[in-house]
């Protein structure tokens, strides 16, 4: 179910990166959000936080230079930049819950019109429940950006009236970055800030499970070829 002109995963990550100001402390969730690190502007000093106890995370480790005592939340070998710090898990989550992380970029199964997030479990029987740091990041980061395709692979909307999957947190999502649009979650519900070229609000609405408002300043969502 591909809409013509929809953004690639890297283009989506690039778009989120544009909304992260220099100097911010940022946590990237496992999966597509990890791509955001590749797209921050070179002249922006952004401090990447890793839940397992790293502030100042750098690029992934080159093949042959992996150190398995230095891994990401997704357990991949990584590097640190000059200025980095190591700390224990209790301090790491004090940073998160205490509001010291400016932005978390997370994936989603569902986002409700009131900013509720479901991203840790589909509640499917037979699947082992696993939450990791998702709930702490959801409530603790000052802003939560969601990076996700607009619908599931079979076209089911991810932006919905109310989440039917088990919740991660309530009223925590600031903005949603999809392959089709950038949507701000406001007190009055979701407001479309950007849409890809040629897409009409009615078509976007048809791919969403709750009423979307159109910002009077709605702009074209575009990204370089990546």
């Amino acid at each position: 179910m591909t809409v013509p002109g929809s953004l690639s995963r890297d283009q989506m990550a690039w778009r989120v990166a544009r909304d992260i100001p220099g100097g911010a402390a940022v946590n990237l969730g496992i999966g597509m959000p990890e791509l955001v690190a590749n797209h921050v502007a070179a002249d922006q000093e952004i401090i990447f936080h890793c839940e397992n106890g790293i502030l100042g995370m750098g690029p992934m480790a080159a093949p042959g230079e992996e150190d398995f005592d230095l891994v990401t939340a997704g357990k991949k070998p990584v590097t640190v930049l000059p200025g980095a710090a190591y700390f224990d898990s209790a301090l790491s989550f004090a940073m998160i819950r205490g509001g010291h992380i400016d932005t978390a970029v997370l994936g989603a199964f569902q986002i409700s019109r009131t900013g509720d997030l479901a991203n840790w479990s589909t509640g499917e029987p037979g699947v082992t429940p696993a939450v990791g740091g998702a709930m702490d990041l959801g409530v603790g980061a000052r802003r939560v950006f969601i990076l996700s395709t607009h619908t599931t692979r079979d076209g089911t909307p991810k932006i919905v009236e109310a989440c039917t999957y088990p919740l991660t947190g309530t009223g925590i999502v600031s903005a949603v970055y999809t392959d089709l649009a950038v949507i701000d979650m406001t007190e009055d519900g979701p407001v479309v800030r950007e849409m890809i070229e040629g897409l009409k609000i009615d078509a976007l609405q048809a791919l969403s499970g709750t009423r979307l408002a159109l910002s009077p300043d709605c702009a074209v969502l575009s990204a370089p070829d990546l």
Partner: protein
Amino acid sequence: MTIDKRKPTATEAVAGVKDGSTVMISGFGEAGNPTELVHALVDQGAADLVVVNNNAGTGHLGLAKLLEAGRVRKVICSFPRSAKSVVFQELYKAGKTELEVVPQGTLAERIRAGGAGIGGFYTPTAAATPLAEGKETRTIDGRDYVLEYPIHADVALIKAEQADPWGNLTYNKAARNFAPAMCMAARLTIVQVREFVDLGGIDPEHVVTPSVFVDRIVEIPKPISEAAALLEESAP
């Protein structure tokens, strides 16, 4: 008397662990796991254990080996579902191991609280979610918080980088993760380190876990890397 917590072998370090113990095991994924101590515990034979770890073991080493040996009654962790967590998945699906899933920050803070003499705390994490069901929720300054209780352990198995004879510890990079809190929360804290150093060999400014939280230490100069072992296992 002089204090010397050094033990000659992992076997001697884990001696005396009783059936039914709650055992904290440091590590995040494959980083910071006290694999040799866990293997010594497998050989020691303690059973009916409750294990506290961030994960539920990967591959067939360390915690996965302890699970595979049928010694674990219950796992308390935040993320038991990694791709290579094959042993636990089977045990859980077969109903042979209980699971308590705790958000990672709540897990770390419950362990810290256990070691710090705190009787409980209110956290915003998990409020209004299924993981808060059956727990007291209180509104403080307009925000909902969930009451969480401390976790205490009978034994903690820890990996660190250096120890002096008193048991002052340093760690290596992100292998630190849950270890400092777990050292505090157990009645018996057993640590494997890559290197013993003399008393005074660690600058007091650089001690991460102070000696009072440590009971036994053993030197394992070349510990197994569970991650490297996993890579080898999956190599064609």
